[in-house]
């Protein structure tokens, strides 16, 4: 019984699917944000798994990419939080069903 690349990729796929469901189906803005963070984590896991298992000229470029993804995810979470506060201030709600001014 050994653990190979496919195991990690399947875990990444499951995490990504869960994150996608959260991002699409949650009514609370913070729930959506949680889904987005899960998707980032799934992508990172896939990168690191590839970096460990796959033939490459510079294997650590996967890790470098993950560092950048973590950085950008942190910045994006901060700005998303600021936007959520602004929306709450103006619309008195962060219910995704009610934030629909741009709908047709």
């Amino acid at each position: 019984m050994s653990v190979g690349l496919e195991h990690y990729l399947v875990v990444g796929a499951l995490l990504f699917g869960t994150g996608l469901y959260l991002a699409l189906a949650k009514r609370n803005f913070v729930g959506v944000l949680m889904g987005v963070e899960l998707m980032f984590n799934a992508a990172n896991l896939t990168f690191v798994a590839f970096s460990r298992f796959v033939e490459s000229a510079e294997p650590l470029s996967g890790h470098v990419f993950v560092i950048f993804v973590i950085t950008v995810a942190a910045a994006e979470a901060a700005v998303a939080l600021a936007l959520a506060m602004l929306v709450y201030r103006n619309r008195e709600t962060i219910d995704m069903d009610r934030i629909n001014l741009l709908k047709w």
Partner: protein
Amino acid sequence: MDDAGSVIAFWLLAALTVGSALGVVAVRDLIRALVLLITSFLGVAGLYITLSADFVAVAQVLIYAGAISILLIFAIMLTPRASRDNAETFLQVPALLLAGLVAFTIGFISLQTDWPIAERGGFGETASAIGEALLDKYVLPFEMASVLLLVAMLGAIVLVRPEGTPEE
């Protein structure tokens, strides 16, 4: 990775990670969902360690479980109490179908493809190599990332400044 320790560690950590992620979907309270999300982050850090990515694992704990979770906590605190019930929108079923389809496609393709597996085994110390790469080959994205962080910080501060503050 054949030895028993790695296999047991992988299955336990994978169960923890995916279980916590599914828990985030299912629990009825937003704060509990957040705690399960933090558990999921820690599980992913554990999976990094099984992949001998030590620096990335510690960075994951430090940034995700230590800082982004706090951001989400503050986000929950600053929003109304009524919407802390972790409910779903009316798009539940289409979202479930789409997410299931995406997960299935990714899983299926990754199982079918013939990946060129290297025989090199785990890494030794990754921190120094990552550091050198960041300053040698990837110095431009590195500098741009610092500018991005600065802009994000300033943007977040400017966005939530209360209206009517005098320009100082």
